[in-house]
């Protein structure tokens, strides 16, 4: 039996996919702006966030209306609950990309501290986590969501390496470099938080697909 309700669920899914494409682009641009110390691209990244905020509100409204009108149950209910949470996590990821752009603006008029190696590596890893999360959402892929959760340990470890290196080589040795080193430490922290939001998304996808709640106890896989 054809249900108009299916069209509304599909509309939410497509809006989230559109939003996730924007969010991926935001991370991409924020890291590019950092690598090139490009203030124009950093500003563009900050401005683009408004569009993502608008999409977030529209997804919230669509989900609220579906709950109100259709009282979704079972798989439909889990989809709407997951969509609401995903929506929030994607918006937070975009905010973190804005945070990276803001740090870039703070250091963009000054000479680069060092050639960036690990920060782009960390950015590449969290971008892959986001891409995989979105793919897991699209294909209802439990295993891929699990892979995202498991990759978070590597993100944390690179973040720790970046912090240790910047602290030892710059903050402790050269007070003049401390401000720029601190900005890079914060950027590594923002990227690590993006990874955490990808983990949240993956956990919500596991709930959506299997009704299992794995939050706070990943041993439940």
């Amino acid at each position, binding site marked *: *039996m054809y249900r108009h309700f299916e069209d509304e669920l599909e509309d939410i899914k497509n809006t989230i996919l559109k939003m996730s494409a924007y969010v991926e682009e935001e991370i991409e641009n924020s890291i590019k702006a950092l690598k090139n110390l490009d203030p124009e691209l950093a500003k563009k990244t900050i401005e683009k966030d408004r569009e993502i905020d608008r999409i977030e509100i529209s997804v919230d409204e669509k989900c609220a209306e579906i709950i109100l009108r259709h009282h979704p149950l*079972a798989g439909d209910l889990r989809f709407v609950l997951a969509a609401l949470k995903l929506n929030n996590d994607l918006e937070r990821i975009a905010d973190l990309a804005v945070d990276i752009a803001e740090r870039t603006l703070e250091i963009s008029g000054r000479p680069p501290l060092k050639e960036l190696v690990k920060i782009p590596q960390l950015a590449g890893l969290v971008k892959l986590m986001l891409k995989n999360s979105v793919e897991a959402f699209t294909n209802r892929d439990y295993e891929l969501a699990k892979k995202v959760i498991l990759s978070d340990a590597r993100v944390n470890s690179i973040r720790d390496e970046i912090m240790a290196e910047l602290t030892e080589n710059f903050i402790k040795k050269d007070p003049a470099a401390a401000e720029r080193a601190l900005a890079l430490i914060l950027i590594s922290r923002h990227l690590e938080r993006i990874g955490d939001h990808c983990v949240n998304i993956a956990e919500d996808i596991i709930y959506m697909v299997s009704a299992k709640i794995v939050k706070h106890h990943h041993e439940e896989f």
Partner: protein
Amino acid sequence: MIKLDAKNRTNSADMGYTEIKDPLNKVGNFLPEKTKIKAGNLNFYYGKTHTLKDINLNIYEKKVTAIIGPSGCGKSTFIRLLNRMNDFVADSRAEGEILIDENNIFGKTADPVEIRKRVGMVFQKPNPFPKSIFDNIAYGLEINGAKDRFYIEEKVVNSLKKSALFEEIRHRLRDNALGLSGGQQQRLCIARCIAIEPEIILFDEPCASLDPISTAKIEELILELKKDYTIVIVTHNMQQALRVSDYTAFFLMGELIEYNTTKKIFENPSDRRTEDYITGRFG
């Protein structure tokens, strides 16, 4: 009339009931439930039509069990068997057994009148007698042998209080029950049922003809009544099943497709057919 097929009747221990190993689906406190009703290898036929097919189901004491399924799936037939209402259906036949507290209600010594005292029923359409509110309740007590006027009055008032109707009609006890609203009439029918002190109450779509306010009152009442009674409710309203029941059984074309906690059934059913039905994809 009911004819029991002795050959098909099996020992309850061998019947492979639908057991729920984790009634609260890991989220919540696990409480082992006491079984009040056991349907074992239950089959029912209207003439040649096989209406219920090998139903194995445990209904738990002082819990609300919802029976859901599309029209004609056998849910009303099933609950009508629980107090032998189908005895009155011509050319019908039941096989298997229904145990209430381990006693087979189809057994040779089972008395249908006694069973109906233990298992009360509330129907879709309120059906008060064309008598006073008071007499609607007193009548059942009197035909069950009560003679003492004080005893009867006390029972009538207590039943009306338990059914959350007393405060609304305390000054109208001698008025004709047919003058009550639909929701009040339904609560009167519940009071009439409670007065006989049953152990189990069957509700067959009790809110189907009621407005949302009366529906809410009946649902609140069901939640209150489950402290003292085992309740089985047939409903087409999924939200109602969610609001009032602890367990849900999904019937389809005479078969029990799935039975579990209500949370599990409505959040993550195991069978595709259950999911299709509750999400409206069915058909």
